[in-house]
């Protein structure tokens, strides 16, 4: 038998479907009421009333990517720290793990400081 | 600087200028060859120091066969003003640009180009400014007729 309460997660997973069902409901209601008179101009992309210059799918600036890159590494760090935080009160003597976590955070703080200095955190 | 002094200085700088102190603002009319040097002098000479482009436009004179470009300049430091005029040939209107001296003239000249068809030589960005790029004709010329408004202004 399961060690964890699958039912609880079942509800959470079900609510993913529930959200979708909600949108389906809303769109269905709108589908009954809404008009549909498309015309070529209406289906153009909005660009302040002008014909768009070039495709929108242009190649973007690397700055966005750098932000996401630093973010991924910090997200991993957060994922590591959650077990630490969860188990914190279970340790009779938390100083050892705290030191471990401190070193862990410290190394990544160095990484952050490096990225900061390198300007990876500068926006575009 | 008083009117007379001002115009004297202009004549000193450009002997071919026809000056006139009578009208509302002191006025100097210069031939096209002398135009650009005079303007440079007006800007650079510290005694004149015309640094402010008050206004710039053109007037069409079909009978005279000319489009007169009219420059109103002012000096912040001295507080004096002057009108400089330069005729462009109506058939082939060309006037040297002064947009490098007064950046504000860049758009003024574009407007004159747009509505009168005067070509400002060496202008960095001479495109129509008000009308669409494919507009035919120069609406502020006296002989401009548009089928949409012809004969009936309103």
């Amino acid at each position: 038998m399961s060690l964890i309460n699958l039912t609880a997660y079942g509800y959470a997973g079900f609510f993913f479907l529930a959200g979708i069902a909600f949108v389906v409901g809303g769109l269905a209601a709108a589908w009954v009421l809404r008009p549909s008179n498309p015309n070529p101009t209406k289906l153009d992309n909005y660009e302040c009333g002008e014909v768009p210059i070039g495709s929108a799918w242009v190649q973007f600036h690397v700055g966005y990517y750098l932000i996401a890159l630093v973010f991924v590494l910090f997200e991993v760090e957060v994922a590591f720290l959650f077990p630490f935080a969860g188990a914190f009160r279970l340790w009779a003597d938390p100083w050892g793990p705290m030191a471990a976590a401190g070193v862990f955070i410290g190394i990544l703080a160095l990484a952050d400081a490096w990225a900061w200095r390198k300007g990876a955190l500068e926006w575009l | 600087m008083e009117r007379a002094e001002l115009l004297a200085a202009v004549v000193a700088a450009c002997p071919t200028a026809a000056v006139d102190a009578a009208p509302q603002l002191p006025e100097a009319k210069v031939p096209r060859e002398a135009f650009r040097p005079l303007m440079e002098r007006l800007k650079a000479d510290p005694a004149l120091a015309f640094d402010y482009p008050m206004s710039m436009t053109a007037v069409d004179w079909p009978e005279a066969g000319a489009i007169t470009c009219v420059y109103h300049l002012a000096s912040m430091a001295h507080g004096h003003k002057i009108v400089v005029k330069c005729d462009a040939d109506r058939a082939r209107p060309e006037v040297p640009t002064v947009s490098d001296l007064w950046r504000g003239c860049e758009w003024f000249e574009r407007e004159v180009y747009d509505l009168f068809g005067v070509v400002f030589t060496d202008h960095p960005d001479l495109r129509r400014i008000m009308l669409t790029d494919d507009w035919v004709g120069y609406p502020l010329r006296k002989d401009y007729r548009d089928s949409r408004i012809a004969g009936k202004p309103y």
Partner: protein
Amino acid sequence: MTPAPLPLVPPPAFRLGAFLWKLVLTPGAALSGTVAPALRAALGPHLPPAGVEAVLALLCFVAMSGFVTVTALVLTLAERKVAAFFQNRKGPNRVGPWGLLQPIADVVKLLQKEDTVPRAADRPVFLLAPFMAMAATYMVLAVLPFDRGLAVTDLDLGVLYITAVSGLGVLSILMAGWASANKYSLLGGLRSAAQIVSYELSPALVVLSVVLFSGTLSVQGIVERQAAGWNLWAMGPMGVVGMLIYLTAGTAEINRAPFDLPEAESELTAGYHTEYSGMRFSMFQLAEFMNMFVVAALTATLFLGGWQPLGPLAALHIPGYLWFFGKSGAMVFVIMWFRWTFPRVRVDQLMTLEWKILLPLSFLNLIGVALWTALGMK
């Protein structure tokens, strides 16, 4: 002639109030952790366990959808009324008394709007994006603790789950931004994604500090731990700092002003949902409103004791869900207050705020909480 003495009958308004109060108290007592067991007991003999759970899940869905709809309606009206309050005007006041029916009129209008999909758009992705937005929001709503025992589900990893799932919303924004084939949308979507992911970090760290302090990840557990004192002060100065970080970063994570750059109308017209219309657009809007409520509710849950009453006021026996809604409402008001008073920050300033101020601050806060907890454990 002296006027007749006033009869000692309470004025009608008071009687109405008392009646409503009773009406509120009754379901509160009934719902607190008793509905689900009662239903399980009642249905158990007739249905297989899976069937019971299916019925319960369906009920949860219906109840939550009702809740979402009502909350969205109330919040749209509240937003406009709050805006009006800050702007010296009356706000909606034509439809129904005091404009109370205005949101209904809005819904009717939105329902009648044509649903356009740009020709150049990546059609399937364009159509799917609102579903994703709403699904992510619903998944967070599943663990909100309205009262003791009154939540759709209580996960062992509750707050970690919230952190993870609220990150899914960014996918919908990227989908919408990409699929619209519009420059404003794409730029808005990219900005939004960068913003959301950045502002996921410091709330996560603040949540971590609360977890560390409470010793549990269950949302209900965190609220239970605050019976003695709300985390706001139980955690010492770190509580206040943590709450401020959480509220600020939360506001940014849900793209609300002053951090509403993705849809900054003075720059990008409407950001990633520029091309959306009618109901599809309103689903984004709805998700945004619900996210605002979620951030407010989580702030209340993590720091203000959730459904726990304020110490001395416990004697009043005000039902927990009223506390919850009261605190969440107050936080919602604060978030709206932000929106209607601050100018919008610029995108690089926004990133600077997160990466150079909030993130280091929340790390320090976490360390502070760890020390505080370790010292308090002895």
